């Protein structure tokens, strides 16, 4: 609108508004005749008046929003309402000395005139003072008040002002930020190192007391007039942070200073002491060079975050122009500074002491760990880049790295424990990597090495080394897990026997270390299918831990394992209860072992899925998937395995299309990850997808998947490994379905041979094999032999499983078909019905379908026996099911089968 003939416009509008709506147009037309511009403006304004009806009519609502926006930092915005002169606690505010995003800092004096005491009071204007927050605030404050170190500014008290703002009363420090101090005094490298050592000592003290700073920056590290270091605001950012959700995915409001923020802070991941050490690394770099490691000028916030996560800092020596300083920095100091600011926490200094030791070593002229580490760092990068050419050794490496949880630093409630845990975890990983590096795959005979060989050598190496018993136990337990993962249970067991001896000797039979060995034994027994024995071991461990009366995170592992054995024995309720307890325990830890957490979510998900509560189960599984995606990454082995599990669940629910999507996701990740190199996880998913395809009748696809899996497993484990036998079994099954019975027979017999070489004659795996083998024999019309094997299968299953386990349903289903085939209709009808009964309460759609098919076949058997009433009864049951169960009403196959059978009647 040009508004230049506004008066005229207003006049016309006024009159038009007084007219009834129908006459306005004509009125405007006549009054604007010959002046299209005027007419346009009048019309536009009139339209706007009607379009804007209701707008601005509710000023209260509008203003409420405005107030809310402003109230966030009202104190900062209103200069007129400074708190100078008011009393906070027993102090009287004198003047404002600082201002930041979190709040304002005042200098205050004790209100009583006799006491001469100056303090700094920080008033947090951004904190929302809910009751819950205040409580948390109080609790945290007590911990902080317990920090007594000359290098850390004391926290005296905290509370909430009358207006509801949290405040903190701290030691008043009159000092200069460390960076300015150094440039002002023109400090030499040596002087800077000394200052930095003081800083690290203060930080070490706080970390040992389990306080993480979270917001270290030069502005928080002051040097007072006597040259002493004083760190301000220790733990304050945690103190004022919004209530932290226990479930760890949310780390609360992000609170960080971009230049000093570690990648994990940007990614909103777990914050550990390594996070503080990163910030110190940046400050160290800055002190040495006068430059920040990363240049953020002209970058948007998003770009800054990307840079923090991805951009590698140049060597400090390359960031200075003075050739003398450059020379000083080259080598050790470069390595130390870069190690301190590694993107990955596991390659960084994890405890202040390491950083400190390196600086001290440097000053003494001793070798520094960062140099060696930088070699390791580079060689591991090399591993990652050249997985393919490095071959089998990379598999070992991935197996070690795959056990993410064991080196996640857990700050446990037990303060002393924290240090040990960290040390232990670090050592384990590093030593393992050292050991496998010793079998150098790059220069060595990588092509001929096999996985068992490499592991064997590594194990020998560990056993022979003179190591501190705690570390040795940790290493052996970890190796045992690796052996477990590749199904070499004898080896796994042997190693645990050794750890048990060690822990008994050094820590006593009632130590946590001994308890852990028992848990491991329980786990191996579980893997072997010896659930009772496993339970016994686990209960031993439980007894030890209970007597210790600690709340160690080992409980989570224990309950998780107990859940497994109960599950193995089909005690699903108690199994689920254990998984739930494990989950409760793990989420209560201050630092959560992500790997374990994810595993437990998966287990509980499985339990709940079994109960048929798909919605809850799915939500747990997707939670696990989400956590894994954000912690481990989208293209990660654990992420892939969760996707694989979800695929499996969908498969059991007969949602084949969804199932295939998740299997495919899992496979794609693994393909990328393992680069088609042999890996157990890859072949496992190939196998599952194969099973899916064979379920839906895609025999060709299934055959190709099974063949691939077989090839990988053979390469990985050698010809005679049970996994190879599994794949052969699956392939045999496909050939059987395709009617190529001779081919199936050959594979089955190879499978039998391998089983016999590896298992005792009553091993659980024989049960399933005998069932399938019997089925094949039946098809090949060797009926008597088939009878025999069906019975064998049943008797083995009976040793391991309760008679109502769905495994029996599958057996009886096949068995009944055999009876039907051999015209023994009475037995066939009986077995079909038993199978149906066992299948149905389990609630999987897949089972529902199979149960119904069994009933139809039982009916057909009765028709053959001329027992039409019985057949009719069964068909009536089937009809009711088809009408009432969704999975069936949508299933054409079942319906056709029913119709055809019903017609026979």
């Amino acid at each position, binding site marked *: *609108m040009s*508004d230049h003939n*506004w008066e005229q416009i*207003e006049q016309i*509008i*006024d009159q038009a*508004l007084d007219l009834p709506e129908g006459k306005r147009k004509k009125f405007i037309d006549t009054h604007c005749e010959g002046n299209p511009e005027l007419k346009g403006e009048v019309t*536009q*304004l*009139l*339209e*706007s*008046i*009607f*379009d*804007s009806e209701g*707008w*601005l009519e509710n*000023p*209260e609502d*509008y*203003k*409420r*929003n*405005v*107030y*809310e*926006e*402003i*109230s*966030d*930092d*009202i*104190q*900062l*915005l*209103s200069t*007129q309402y400074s708190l100078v002169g008011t009393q906070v606690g027993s102090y009287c505010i004198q003047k404002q000395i600082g*201002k*930041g*995003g*979190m709040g304002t800092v005042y200098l205050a004096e004790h209100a009583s005139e006799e006491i001469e005491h100056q303090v700094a009071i920080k008033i947090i204007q*951004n904190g*929302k*003072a*809910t009751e819950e927050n205040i409580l948390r605030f109080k609790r945290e404050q007590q911990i902080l008040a317990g920090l007594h170190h000359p290098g850390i500014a004391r926290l005296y008290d905290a509370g909430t002002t009358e*207006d*509801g703002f949290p405040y903190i009363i701290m030691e008043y420090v009159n000092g200069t930020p460390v960076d300015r101090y150094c440039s002002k005094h023109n400090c030499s490298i040596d002087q800077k190192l000394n200052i930095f050592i003081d800083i690290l000592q203060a930080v070490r003290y706080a970390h040992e007391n389990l306080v993480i700073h979270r*917001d270290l*920056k*030069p*502005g928080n590290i002051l040097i007072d007039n006597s040259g002493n270091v004083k760190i301000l605001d220790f733990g304050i*950012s945690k103190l004022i942070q919004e209530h932290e959700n226990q479930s760890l995915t949310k780390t609360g*409001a*992000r*609170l*960080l*200073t*971009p*230049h000093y923020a570690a990648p994990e802070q940007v990614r909103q991941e777990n914050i550990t002491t390594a996070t503080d050490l990163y910030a110190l690394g940046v400050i160290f770099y800055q002190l040495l060079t006068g430059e920040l490691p990363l240049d953020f000028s002209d970058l948007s916030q998003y770009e800054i975050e990307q840079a923090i996560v991805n951009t590698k800092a140049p060597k400090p020596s390359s960031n200075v122009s003075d050739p003398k300083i450059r020379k000083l920095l080259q080598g050790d100091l470069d390595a130390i500074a870069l190690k301190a600011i590694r993107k990955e926490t596991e390659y960084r200094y994890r405890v202040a002491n390491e950083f400190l030791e390196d600086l001290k070593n440097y000053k003494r002229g001793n070798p520094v760990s960062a140099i060696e580490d930088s070699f390791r760092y580079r060689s591991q990068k090399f591993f990652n880049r050249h997985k393919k050419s490095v071959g089998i050794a990379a598999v070992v490496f991935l197996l070690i790295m795959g056990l993410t949880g064991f080196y996640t630093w857990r700050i446990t409630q037990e303060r002393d424990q924290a240090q040990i845990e960290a040390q232990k975890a670090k050592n384990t990983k590093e030593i393992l990597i050292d050991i496998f590096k010793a079998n150098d795959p790059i220069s060595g005979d990588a092509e001929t090495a096999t996985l068992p060989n490499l592991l064997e050598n590594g194990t020998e190496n560990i056993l022979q080394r003179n190591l501190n018993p705690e570390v040795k136990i940790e290493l052996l337990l970890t190796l045992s897990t690796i052996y477990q993962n590749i199904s070499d249970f004898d080896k796994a067991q042997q190693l645990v026997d050794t750890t048990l001896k060690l822990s008994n000797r050094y820590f006593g039979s009632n130590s946590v270390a001994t308890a852990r060995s028992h848990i491991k034994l329980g786990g191996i027994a579980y893997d072997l299918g010896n659930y009772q024995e496993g339970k016994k071991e686990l209960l031993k461990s439980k007894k030890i831990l209970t007597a210790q009366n600690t709340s160690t995170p080992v409980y989570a592992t224990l309950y998780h394992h107990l859940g497994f054995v109960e599950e193995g024995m089909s005690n699903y309720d108690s199994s689920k209860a254990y998984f739930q307890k494990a989950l409760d325990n793990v989420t209560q830890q201050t630092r959560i072992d992500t790997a374990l957490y994810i595993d437990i979510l998966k287990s509980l998900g499985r339990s709940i899925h079994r109960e048929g509560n798909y919605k809850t189960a799915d939500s747990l599984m997707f939670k696990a998937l989400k956590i894994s995606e954000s912690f481990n990454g989208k293209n990660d082995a654990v992420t892939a395995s969760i996707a694989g599990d979800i695929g499996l669940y969908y498969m059991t629910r007969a949602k084949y299309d969804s199932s295939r999507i998740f299997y495919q996701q899992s496979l794609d990740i693994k393909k990328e990850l393992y680069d088609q190199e042999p890996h157990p996880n890859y072949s496992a998913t190939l196998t599952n997808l194969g099973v899916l395809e064979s379920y839906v009748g895609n025999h060709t696809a299934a055959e190709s998947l099974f063949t691939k899996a077989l090839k990988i497993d053979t390469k990985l484990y050698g010809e005679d490994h049970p996994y190879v036998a599994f794949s052969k079994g699956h392939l045999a099954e496909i050939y059987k379905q395709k009617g190529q019975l001779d081919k199936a027979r050959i594979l089955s017999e190879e499978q039998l041979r391998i089983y016999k070489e590896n298992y005792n004659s009553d091993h659980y795996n024989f049960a399933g094999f005998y069932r399938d083998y019997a089925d094949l024999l039946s098809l090949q019309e060797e009926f008597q032999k088939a009878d025999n094997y069906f019975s064998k299968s049943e008797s083995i299953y009976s040793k391991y499983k309760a008679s109502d386990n769905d495994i029996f349903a599958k057996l009886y289903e096949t068995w009944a078909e055999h009876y039907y085939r051999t015209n023994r209709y009475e037995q066939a009808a009986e077995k079909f019905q038993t199978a149906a009964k066992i299948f149905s309460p389990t609630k999987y759609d897949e089972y529902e379908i199979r149960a119904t098919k069994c009933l139809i076949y039982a009916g057909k058997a009765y028709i053959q026996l001329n027992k039409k009433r019985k057949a009719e009864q069964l068909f009536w049951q089937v009809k009711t099911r088809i009408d009432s169960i969704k999975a069936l009403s949508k299933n054409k196959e079942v319906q056709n089968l029913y119709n055809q059978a019903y017609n026979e009647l």
Partner: protein
Amino acid sequence: MGTGSKVTQLLIRLREGEKGVFDKIYPLIYNQLHRMAHSHMVRQNPGHTLSKTELVHEAYLKMIDQSEIDFTDRSHFLAIASRCMRQILIDYARKKHAKKRGGQNTDVTYIDGLFNAENRKTEELINLDKALNELSTLNERLAKVVEMRFFGEMTIEETAEALDVSKSTVKRDWMKARGWLYNKLKGKFEIT
């Protein structure tokens, strides 16, 4: 003499047409309102609900000895208070806005999200204020009607009384002003 009765006296003198009274009364009302607005916003914490009475009216109740005042005086008071209210809100909004754009160049610790998307309303308010200034050059009364109706939450009757015009004029003015502002601001923010 307390502020309250002082304002009452001033209002009466304003009615009688004494010169310079406005300049005396304005800061008194402004300060009172500013104090009230401040404590109002400080209390914007979870668990506190806003009082139902609009600040301008609350200020009136606090500051004026009602037995001595008639309806016209009241409307005059509210009109001045509306003006104050506008100034106070815009003042806050500007500071907030400046802060958001990084007014400070020290190492400010930032809290994600707090200074981001959530500043929409204050930004809108600043735009509204600018547009109102422009509108007042076309027809000052229209801008005043908006000031009173929107910032002061005055009724049509109160507005008519304060401006000494008929109620239907206020209604028409309100419509024209609203239409004009809408046209001006649409696209700048979502109209609710």
